[in-house]
């Protein structure tokens, strides 16, 4: 007799828990009820970590899919728009050293790879500005849409910066009131296993025993189910990505009219980097660094230097952030999502996008019965393993392209034994041909598309050999695309409102759904 999977139990009430609950409940909306349920168990005593204020544009479709209003999201989550990341001092470390990794694809990306054409020109324009308007929009402090653009639609591609604590509360309300998710406030005292090793139930003092067919571990670094109970080891990757500490601080604006940056600003330091994220009411700033290279005191000094007078006397919160992930993510009838699955420095805002991709996978391929669960789990593990690997490669790419030699941290990042083999092979390949469609990133729902590699590579001064004769066939099309980009850039700069102005209007008037 088959054992159907009907009752999903999610443990943990942070961003991972509520996003997963929302995505599963929305997908199975039609059968939510006595025969199928999603329960989220949250400890009333554990504070949520609330990292990850940056997101990917995938969050727009995720939010739309679970049925929330983007207007309400802006009103309740202290949200702002994000159009990419500005990396400062990563290449040479000089004051004028910066590049953008925007969210818009290069012009005509589906038809044409503009990289070799841009390289052949050597006209001094940055790759980003030559192929995409978004760096200029960020420079100008403009929003990626207007008040007349419908919810979740973009004029220029965007994601969000948000207050993770408010976001979890917002999702909770929607999940419970609109999607029928059962919310249980209780501490998990014991995890009860069946004879075969599956998780049978959770014992709680407040709500008694909570049974389920599939358990989702969203307990954060604690990894209560996947780690503590099922013993899946944590695989560190500190040998590739050195940062293992963070100092976080919330910085108020000088005035209510201070412009809000529409991009994450990431500024390299002597042994790490500082994130700077603009929300409507405050900035979230933090220093991510390698404890093997500098002391906490020195790290705090660099953070205070960065903040200047604005940061004087502000309290700093210290986080220990071990880089790495579980060896497997889905074992028996338990799957880990969020920090329980792993953590990497927030250099490219990969945390929430991984939650979304995992939740979508679980919701769409939810095993019908226990008998097929191991097959789905194997697929999930292969896909998720691949994703973590690609994210690690992509983050490392930011470090291996540096020309900085001013500290051991930057020099150590170039040691070949710290660079994954796959990334080394790709760098060799890319010195002769630039990344594009036919290349490497062939998986459905690749976390970072080839365009992202282009922006980082050529933003940091990487050079691919160009054979001018090989380009002539496409020269006219490339010419047209570059011209089109210049026109589009000016059109958007003239038509888009200031970032803070648009958020004010969204809060006041709301956006239409069409």
């Amino acid at each position, binding site marked *: 007799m088959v054992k159907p999977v009907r009752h999903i139990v999610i443990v943990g009430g942070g961003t991972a828990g509520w996003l997963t609950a929302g995505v599963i409940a929305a997908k199975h909306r039609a059968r939510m009820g006595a025969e199928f349920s999603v329960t989220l168990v949250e400890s009333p005593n554990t504070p949520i970590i609330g990292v990850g204020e940056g997101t990917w544009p995938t969050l727009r479709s995720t939010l739309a899919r679970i049925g929330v209003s983007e207007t309400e999201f802006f009103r309740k989550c202290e949200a702002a728009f994000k159009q990419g990341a500005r990396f400062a001092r990563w290449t040479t470390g000089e004051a004028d050293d910066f590049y953008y990794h925007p969210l818009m694809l290069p012009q005509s990306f589906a038809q044409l790879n503009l990289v070799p054409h841009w390289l052949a020109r050597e006209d001094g324009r940055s790759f980003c500005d030559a192929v995409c308007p978004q760096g200029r929009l960020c420079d100008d402090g403009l929003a990626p849409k207007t008040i*007349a653009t419908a919810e979740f639609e973009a004029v220029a591609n965007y994601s969000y910066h948000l207050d993770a604590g408010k976001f979890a509360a917002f999702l909770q309300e929607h999940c419970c009131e609109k999607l029928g998710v059962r919310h249980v406030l209780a501490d998990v005292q014991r995890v009860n296993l069946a004879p075969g090793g599956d998780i049978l139930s959770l014992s709680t003092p407040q709500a008694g025993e909570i049974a389920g067919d599939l358990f989702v571990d969203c307990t954060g670094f604690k990894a209560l189910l996947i780690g503590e109970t099922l013993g899946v080891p944590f695989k560190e990757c500190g040998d590739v990505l050195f940062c293992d500490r963070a100092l976080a601080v919330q910085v108020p604006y000088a005035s209510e009219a201070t412009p809000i940056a529409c991009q994450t600003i990431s500024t390299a330091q002597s042994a790490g980097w500082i994130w700077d994220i603009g929300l409507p009411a405050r900035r979230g700033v933090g220093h991510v660094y390698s404890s093997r290279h500098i002391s906490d005191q020195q790290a705090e000094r660099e953070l205070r230097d960065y903040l200047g007078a604005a940061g004087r006397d502000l309290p700093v919160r210290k986080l220990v952030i071990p880089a790495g992930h579980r060896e497997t993510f889905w074992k028996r009838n338990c799957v880990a999502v969020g920090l329980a699955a792993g953590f990497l420095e927030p250099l490219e805002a990969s945390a929430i996008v991984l939650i979304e991709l995992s939740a979508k996978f679980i919701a769409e391929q939810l095993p019908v019965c226990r008998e097929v669960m191991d097959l789905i789990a194997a697929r999930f593990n292969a896909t998720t393993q691949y994703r973590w690997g690609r994210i690690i490669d992509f983050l490392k790419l930011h470090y291996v392209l540096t020309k900085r030699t001013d500290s051991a941290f930057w020099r150590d990042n170039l040691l070949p034994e710290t660079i994954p083999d796959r990334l080394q092979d790709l760098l060799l390949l890319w010195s002769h041909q630039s990344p594009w469609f036919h290349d490497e990133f062939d998986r459905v729902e690749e976390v970072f598309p080839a365009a992202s590699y282009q922006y980082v590579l050529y933003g940091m001064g990487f050079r691919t050999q160009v054979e001018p004769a090989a380009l002539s066939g496409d020269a006219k099309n490339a010419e047209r695309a570059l011209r089109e980009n210049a026109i589009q850039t000016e059109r958007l700069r003239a038509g888009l409102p200031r970032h803070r102005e648009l958020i004010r*209007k969204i809060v006041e008037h709301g956006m239409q*759904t069409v």
Partner: protein
Amino acid sequence: MPNLQLLNPKTHGQLRLRSTAEAAPHFLQVLAPEFQVAATCCPILFTKDPETGSFYAGAMFGFKPGENLLGSPEDRGGFHPLMLQREGFFMSERNIAIDRDHARFSEHEGEPLFNEAHEPGNSLRAIQRTLGEIHHGLERNKSFIAELTAHKLIEPIEISLKFENGERLTLQGLYTVSLDRLRDVDDAAALQLFRAGHLQLAYTMAASLKHIPRLAQLREQQQATRGQSRQA
């Protein structure tokens, strides 16, 4: 910038209202009480206020700014838009304000606004009625649009036109009532829409779309006439 002044017989006792050739814009806000008559001559569509993003209904007289294919009241079959009638006049709290610099006002020609007793004359009384109708109409529009939005009955409509001279026009940022979704509303909502008078407004808007090809044809004819006169 309009030169706004509160209307009063002391200052404006000599003021007269000229009958100006009203040049209607290509898209003009239209109010619920006018829907029936407007729909006899032109399409009624929604668009968004660029300042707030909220919907308003408008009568379409041309396909781009500066173009009016229904220039005269006869072309519009007697439809005399409230928003044209009120030109130069504004409501300020319970009072009427005027844009003193508007071409409608003159001290020499036209009908006097006030009579010798400093009471409103016929022309001003008509304006007072118009402003009252506008006030009432704006309220009706607001509740109509709010209810359509609540039931997700507004949908974008893209209008692509191709003319004989090769010109192509794609009109964006326009919306109409979704008849498909309207058919799907539950009975309680349908009854509510009907009782509020919103169902009739919705069907009137939907039916008025028939005027789009007619306007395009008018445009074709007007261009042909202009082309001939250039040749001659």
